[in-house]
C-alpha cells in the first residue's frame, strides 16, 4: 500500500506525515479538508446571494432600506472577521436562545460560521456588484429603452450581463479571500482543515510537517477556485468590452 511508504519515510528520514499512514489521522485530516470545502461552497453561494440582494436594495426607493443596507455593509467591512464570528457565536447565539427560551444555543459552531462568513463576504460582494451595475453606461440602457424593453427586461438582458463581466475580477478576489477566511472558524472549533491540523500536530508533535501540509492544502484549494473562476471569466469575455 502506498500509505506504507510514508511510514517508511517517517521511520528512516524522520519526516512524519501521519495523515497518510495513520488511519485515524488520515480520517480526521480529510474530514477537515472536506469541511473546509463545503463550508467554503455554502458561504460562496450565500455571499453572492446576499451581495446581489444588497446591491439591489442599495437602489431602493426607501431611505430607511438604503440606510440599513449601508449600515450592514459598514459594520461587516470595518470590523475584523474574527471578532464577527465570536460575536455571532457567543453574543448573538446567547441573545437569541435567551429570547426564544432555548437552552444550549440555537445553532452549532458550523451554523454560526456559515452565517458570519457569508455576511462578511456578502458585504464586500454588495459593493462589488453595485460598482458593476453603475459601470453599465446610461446610453446603453437608453438604447434598450428606445427598443421598447421594459425595466425588468433591461435589467435581465442588458444591465446584469454587463455588470457581471465588469465585476468578475473583483468578485474573484473576494471569493478567494472568503475561502482563506474559513480558517477563522477554527476559533469557534469548527473542525475544518486548520483545526484538525492543530489537533494532529499536538498529538503527533509533527508541527513542521503539518505546516507544509496546510500550506499545500490551501494552495490547492484556492488554486482550484482560481482556475474555475478564470475559466468562467474567459468563457464570458467578449471582444472590446472590459479590456482594451
Amino acid at each position, binding site marked *: 500500500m502506498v500509505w506504507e511508504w510514508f511510514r517508511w519515510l517517517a521511520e528512516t528520514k524522520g519526516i512524519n506525515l501521519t495523515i497518510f499512514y495513520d488511519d485515524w489521522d488520515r480520517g480526521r485530516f480529510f474530514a477537515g479538508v472536506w469541511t473546509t470545502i463545503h463550508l467554503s461552497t455554502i458561504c460562496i453561494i450565500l455571499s453572492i446571494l446576499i451581495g446581489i440582494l444588497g446591491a439591489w436594495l442599495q437602489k431602493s426607493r426607501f431611505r430607511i432600506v438604503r440606510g440599513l443596507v449601508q449600515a450592514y455593509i459598514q459594520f461587516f467591512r470595518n470590523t475584523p472577521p474574527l471578532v464577527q464570528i465570536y460575536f455571532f457565536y457567543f453574543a448573538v447565539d446567547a441573545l437569541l436562545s435567551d429570547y426564544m427560551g432555548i437552552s444550549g444555543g440555537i445553532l452549532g459552531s458550523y451554523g454560526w460560521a456559515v452565517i458570519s462568513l457569508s455576511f462578511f463576504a456578502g458585504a464586500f460582494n454588495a459593493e462589488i456588484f453595485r460598482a458593476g451595475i453603475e459601470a453599465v453606461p446610461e446610453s446603453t440602457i437608453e438604447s434598450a429603452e428606445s427598443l421598447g424593453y421594459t425595466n425588468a427586461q433591461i435589467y435581465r438582458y442588458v444591465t446584469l450581463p454587463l455588470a457581471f463581466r465588469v465585476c468578475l475580477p473583483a468578485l474573484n478576489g473576494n471569493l478567494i479571500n472568503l475561502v482563506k477566511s474559513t480558517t477563522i472558524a477554527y476559533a469557534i472549533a469548527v473542525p475544518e482543515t486548520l483545526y484538525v491540523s492543530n489537533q494532529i500536530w499536538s498529538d503527533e508533535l509533527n508541527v513542521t510537517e503539518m505546516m507544509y501540509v496546510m500550506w499545500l492544502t490551501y494552495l490547492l484549494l484556492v488554486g482550484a477556485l482560481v482556475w474555475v473562476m478564470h475559466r468562467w471569466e474567459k468563457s464570458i469575455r467578449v*471582444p472590446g468590452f472590459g479590456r482594451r
Partner: protein
Amino acid sequence: MSAAKWTTDMPIVSLRDVHKAYGAYEVLKGISMDVMMGEVICIIGPSGSGKSTLIRCINALNDIQSGSIKVEGQEVNDPKLDKLALRKKVGMVFQQYNLFPHKTALQNVMMAPIKVLKQPRDEVEKRARMLLKKVRLEGKENAYPGELSGGQQQRVAIARSLAMNPQVMLFDEVTAALDPETVKEVLTTIKDLAADGMTCILVTHEMAFAREVANTIYFTDRGIIVEHGPPDTFFANARDPRTREFLSQIL
C-alpha cells in the same frame, strides 16, 4: 386615445408648442413641427440649441413640461402613454451606437423582436440577416461590436432599429463620432432608407448630406426653431441673420 382617427394624409409626427426644461434651464422654448409620412427632416443648429433633446422627446426618452407631441395621432405627453406601442413605431439611432457589447451583430438585431415583440425566432433571424445585408454587413453577423469599426457598429445599430419595423426613424448625430472615411458608409445607408420611403428625422452636422436628402431643414438656436424650409431655399436664401451667421461659419 385618438390614435384610431389618424390617417396617412395627416402628419405622422406633430409637435405643438413643446417646452422642456432641465431644472431652471429651458432647453426647448415652444417648438412646433409637422412631419409627413415618407419625409426626411434634418435639424441643424449650434451645440446646445436643443436639437438632441428635441428628438429624444419624440420617443419619450425625455419628458416635456408642456405642449403636445403626437406620433400617428397618439399623444406622447401623456402619463398613461403606452411606451412600448410608441417605441414600436419610432426607432432611434444614437451618436455612440450603443450596441449591446455582449451580443454579436446578429444577436443585437434579433434581441428586441424576440424579447419585446415575442416574434418567432426563425422569422426574426431571417429578417435580421436580410437587414444586415441591407446595411452592407453581410459576413459580419457573428462579429461582436468590439470587433467592428465605428461605421460598422453604427450600421448594426440602424439594422437593430429597423428590425422593430418602425414607422419613423430618429437619428441623433449618428455620424458625429465617426472617422471621415466611415461617415460616408453610414450616410449611404440612411440615404437608401430615405429612398425606400422611411420617415426620417435627423439631427446632423453634415450639411452637404442634409442638402441632398432632406425635404425640409429646420434650424434651431437657443431652444426655438429660427426658420425652416426646403434645402435649396434654406441654404441659398436664409432669411434670419442667426441662420446666415451659422451657415457662414460652417459652410
